[in-house]
Every structure is written in structure tokens, then in C-alpha cells.
């Protein structure tokens, strides 16, 4: 089995990932949000690479590389371009104030950790204890999507959720089969592009990216 050092390293990286998920929850600015997302991707890639090294699973190297390309370089670049073109650099507006959100997040973390404890005892991988962290970051990203009012932070929340899922998959089972992974990567990519197009359309229609305007679309 792998050395305890590598296990510790993976744990540390997972902890950093959760830290960034929390920072995103507390972040008010869209630009910093995108940067944080990029950092999260980078850490995810690093942890995947370490896991690949420690478990000699070569396909994990490819997924690490894919993560770097897609989530550290391409998607942040796309998002940056988007907000430049849409000219939206406003502060993120939240539905609930940030301390309350953070407290809720803390509760979610406790919940996730407790939930993951029995599952992670079944797993046999080096990084089984990161399962709780992965679950927690998925929940946190979900929370971020719920509490944000504008469209772009919601998309970032969606992408960050995918990061958490990816970590969960690698930590529990050494990653999904390559085909599935490629498929998901493609999904995310296409999803982001389509959302990008949608943003333009939403703004054309409502002259704003505030999602509360979408409420007008419901049936009266």
C-alpha cells in the first residue's frame, strides 16, 4: 500500500478543496469566485495525480490532465471572457446573509462527515477518509447555488459541485471508467457553453442576469 505520507498529502489536498469550497461560499466578488474555482480545479488535479501515483492507476493521470485543461484553463478563461463581454463585474448578491450561509454550511459539513463515516469504512482506497470531504464540498456547492441570486455564481456553483463529485468518485473507487469520465467532461463543457449562450439570451430578454426576473415566466 502507499506510504502514509501520500495518504496525508491527499488528505491535505482534500482539506484545501473543502477550504476553497467554503471560501467560495463566503466570496462576494464574481472575479474572485472564478479564480477560486480555478484553484479548486488545480487542487483537484493535484490530488488526482497523487492518487494515481500512489495507486499506480495510470488512467487517473489522464483524468488529472483533463481536469487541468478543462477546469483550470478552459472554463475559467471562458467565464472570464463571458463576464467581460456581458460586462458584469458586480458583487455577488446573496439571498441569505453570508454568516448564516456559513453556519448552515458548517451544519452541512457535520452532516456530511457523519454520513460518510460508515461508507468510507467500506472503501479500500488510500483516500477513503476524503469521502466525507468530497460529500461536504458537493453539499456546499449546492448550498452556494441555492443562495446566489445571479446566474453566473450559480453556474460556478454547478461546476464546483462537479469537482466535489469527481473527488468523491476518485476517493471511493479510484475514479470512474475513462469513458464515463470523458462523457462527464464533455457534458460539463457543453453545459458551460450552452449556459454561456443562455446568459446572452437572458440578458437580451430581461436586460439583467438577475434570476428573479425569471419568476415572471411562471404561469399566472
Amino acid at each position, binding site marked *: 500500500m502507499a506510504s502514509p*505520507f501520500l495518504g496525508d498529502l491527499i488528505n*491535505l489536498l482534500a*482539506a484545501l478543496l473543502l*477550504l476553497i469550497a467554503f471560501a467560495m461560499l463566503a466570496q462576494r466578488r464574481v472575479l474572485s469566485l472564478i479564480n477560486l474555482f480555478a484553484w479548486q480545479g488545480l487542487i483537484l488535479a493535484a490530488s488526482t495525480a497523487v492518487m494515481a501515483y500512489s495507486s499506480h492507476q495510470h488512467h487517473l493521470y489522464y483524468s488529472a490532465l483533463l481536469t487541468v485543461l478543462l477546469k483550470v484553463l478552459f472554463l475559467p478563461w471562458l467565464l472570464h471572457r463571458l463576464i467581460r463581454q456581458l460586462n458584469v463585474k458586480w458583487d455577488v448578491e446573496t439571498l441569505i446573509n453570508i*454568516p448564516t450561509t*456559513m453556519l448552515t454550511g458548517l451544519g452541512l459539513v457535520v452532516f456530511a462527515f457523519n454520513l460518510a*463515516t460508515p461508507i468510507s469504512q467500506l472503501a479500500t482506497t488510500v483516500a477513503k477518509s476524503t469521502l466525507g470531504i468530497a460529500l461536504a464540498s458537493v453539499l456546499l456547492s449546492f448550498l452556494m447555488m441555492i443562495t446566489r441570486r445571479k446566474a453566473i455564481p450559480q453556474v460556478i456553483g454547478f461546476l464546483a459541485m462537479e469537482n466535489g463529485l469527481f473527488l468523491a468518485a476518485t476517493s471511493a473507487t479510484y475514479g470512474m471508467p475513462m469513458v464515463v469520465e470523458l462523457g462527464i467532461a464533455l457534458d460539463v463543457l457543453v453545459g458551460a457553453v450552452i449556459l454561456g449562450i443562455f446568459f446572452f439570451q437572458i440578458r437580451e430578454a430581461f436586460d439583467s442576469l438577475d434570476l428573479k426576473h425569471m419568476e415572471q415566466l411562471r404561469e399566472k
Partner: protein
Amino acid sequence: MNTWPDTLFQLIQSVLVVTLAPLLLGWINQCRAWLQNRRGAGPLQPYRELHKLFHKEVVLAHHASALFRMAPYIRFGSMWLAAAIVPVLATDLPFSPAADVIALVGVFAFSRVFLALAAMDVGTAFGSLGARREMLVSFLAEPALLMVFFNASLISHSTQLTTIVETLSHHTLMLHPSMAFAAAAFLMVLLAENARIPVDNPATHLELTMIHEAMTLEYSARHLALIEWSSHIKLMTYTTLGIALFAPWGIAQAGDWRAVPLAVAALLFKLGLAGAGLALLETLSAKLRLFRAPEFLGTAFLLAVLGLLTYFLRIS
């Protein structure tokens, strides 16, 4: 335990921390000046200012009580004590059993409460405003700091700083996962407690924003010098504390005299780096509105608690 060379070493170390403290601040200011394309006054400037202040004549408000005159000395004394507890060069210190990390937080609280009371003593609007804001910042920063320490003491099963540092410096990895959270929280507390940007701006006297400076507005000459100097020591103590907790490599072990020169070199290097880092951070960030400060510190507090949770995830 209480052998003479150890005690001597302890004394030397605390004197060193106290005398080098203004230099650290000077260095940070110099780095900031460089980053902002200014020439700066040189890292020795704080010494000159202290010297100047000591020479001046004290001007005291008419209805200042004895508490007002005592407070600078008490603050200086407690900061000296704090500096003596933190292992800077070696982990075996005869003073260290006198106070553990919880007591260290207590020392900071003690000196702060005295300063806040002294600020209210003269009875001007500024003083009470400063005291109120300082206590506001501290009541959130103090628990966060304690939670950071709890992170460290859960790993090392001790609240004794020397034991903590020894355990951490023997750890396989440079950073325990839960310590990643603690480090982020500690950095935020450091900025807030030492009246740095983004919570306070040490260079301003604008009543809308000042916190620490508002408290010391009535002080002059040697009293002000002592307060300033204690603030330098506080910054130095926090920085060395951060180094000891999160980057303890190179610290000399108990009774190992030959490691001391290496430890000095490592410490100077790390301090220089930390100072530059702080300067960079302060240049890059803007001061928060006062009512964003609780949010900032609340985040620090939650991060530290999260660190504790992460620790339990690993052992369970």
C-alpha cells in the same frame, strides 16, 4: 528543568524578540513601500520613532486616572510575557509551563481589556469609539484564535506550546489537513488582532475607520512609545507563533546548543518571508467596512471549527 543556562537562554530569547520586534514592522513597511513604488523610510524607522517618543514630555488629560497611566506599562509587561511563552528558537523553555496556549490568549485579552478601559478613561468620543470597536473585533478574533490552538492541541494532545511545536515539527507531513484550515483562520486573526488591513488601517487617523489608533489618541510621549512598542511585540509574537505552528522546521530541540545558529538563520529567513508576504497581502487587499469585519472574523472562526471537524473525520 529549571537550570541556569536554560533560563539564561530564555531571557536572551525574549529580549531578542522584544528588541527585534520594531525591525519586523519596519521591514513590512519597507516592503510595502517597495511594492507601492515608494522609497520608504528604511526598516529602522520604528526605532527612531520610539526614541523620539521617549524623549518627549508627557501631556496628560486633566481627568485621566491612574488606570490611564498604568495601562501602557501593563500592556508592555503582558506582551513581554507573551513573547516569552512562544518558542521562537528552541522548544525547551523554562518559562513555558507557566502558561499554555489558552493562557496566551488570556494574556492578549488581558492587555487588550486594559487598553480599552484606558481608552475610555479620558472620556472623549474617540476613546470610547475605539474601545468599542476593538472589543468588537476581539470578541470574534479571540475565539477564532483559541480554535486554531485547539486544532494544534488535538494533534499533539497538549495545550503546552512547547509540546505542540515539538510534535508538529516531527510530523511526517509539513501540514496536517486540519491545520490547513487553522492556518487560514490564523492568518485572518493575525491581520485583525494586529490592526492591519483589511480590518484596520495602521496608517490612518480618520474617525470613520480607525480602531486601534482611536484608542491611543490621548496617549503621548513615553506612554505612546510603550504602547507602540507593545504593538510591535504583538505583531512579532503572532508572526513567530504562526511560524512555530505552521512551519516549525529548523527550530532547535531541547538542549541542543549546536542547532541554535541554524535556528536563528531559519527564523530570520522565515520572518523576512512572512513580513514580505504580509506586505504583499496588505497591498493587494482593501480595507473592509467596519461591519464587514465581523463577517471576516466569523469566517475565520468557522474555518477553525471546520478544521477541528476535519481532524475528527480522520480519526473516526
